[in-house]
């Protein structure tokens, strides 16, 4: 998946996640800001990396996550929404998300 435009998904409300994806040069960069970074930072990064792998995003993007205590299912959903929007992709290939 190629990131071609800046895109946002999610909110800054409690239990949610706000994601900003931008095109960039070089390898994929993940910046994580979380209120629960100390306890769950590793888990959030793990879910994010798995989501990048599923969608085939490994370079050419900067992903900034502002986490407000989101559960794993919310993290996956918000990241996927932002990445699909950033790729200009309106159709979801559901097999890749399973």
């Amino acid at each position, binding site marked *: 998946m190629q990131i071609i435009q800046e895109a946002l998904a999610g909110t800054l409300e409690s239990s*949610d996640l706000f994601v900003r994806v931008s095109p960039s040069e070089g390898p994929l960069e993940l910046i994580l800001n979380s209120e629960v970074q100390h306890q769950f930072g590793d888990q959030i990064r793990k879910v994010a990396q798995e989501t990048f792998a599923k969608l085939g995003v490994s370079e050419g993007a900067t992903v900034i996550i502002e986490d407000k205590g989101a559960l794993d299912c919310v993290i996956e*959903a918000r990241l996927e*929404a932002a990445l*699909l*929007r950033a790729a200009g992709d309106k159709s*979801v290939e559901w097999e890749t998300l399973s």
Partner: protein
Amino acid sequence: MTLRRSMLFIPGSNAAMISTAFVFKPDSVMFDLEDAVSLREKDAARLLVYHTLKSSLYDGIERVVRINPLSTPYGKDDLEAAVRGGADVIRLPKTETADDVKELETCVEELERKCGREVGSTLLMAAIESASGVINSVAIATASKRLMGIAVAGFDYVVDMQTERGDGSELFYARCAVLHAARAAKIDAFDVVYSDINNEEGFLKEVDVIKRLGFNGKSLINPRQIELLHNAYAPTQEDVDYANRVVAAAEKAETEGLGVIALNGKMIDAPIVDSAKRVLSRAQASGVRR
């Protein structure tokens, strides 16, 4: 016997509500991809509902997804997310005819085959929101074996009828027609939401009316209404004592090979036994009315 007293609406785009609503223990949750989600958030809500369905957050609670009508650009994508996610029930809004249900059934079956779900494992429900829908409610209720229930949806209905929500008289015919259609088809019937969330007295008054009419339950928009509703539907201690005596008498008659069930010298027939079992099921789920 599946208890369906409370069906809590949760906007499909609201992460906070999705992450917490299970603690209120409604009988069913309804993740809404239709009216509660703005057009620009449809894609994100669909993904949020899909991943929530795949998680174990709502284990033990029936999970319903309200999709957009199939005639819109969103309906089929919503349906794919819901079926692939493992939704227990698909709620079709604005159902006007039996063909609407049949079209949905065809699409669901196609998706079940595509994603490897057992064919027939996705149930359906139809929301009736117009005069045409009410008039066609018998045909709608019998349109598919997958239908587990039909619901009256008040807001669009009163607009279609050129009236507005009031004391309930504006819904009288729709409630009775939809309820009779459901009972004739042997499926469940759900009443409208009560949107004045701070009016506990008005809510309970409406619950009393719909319970007496025979509705299985009600759509809800606020978790605070769940406990009130469950308590109103809970049987009294007197009801439970009587139901226990009826079931005991039925079991005794069966053990003794008697064709006739008697309690205190009076004959009891099968519908009374079924009704007693429903009372005990409600008591088990929410205790005795306080």
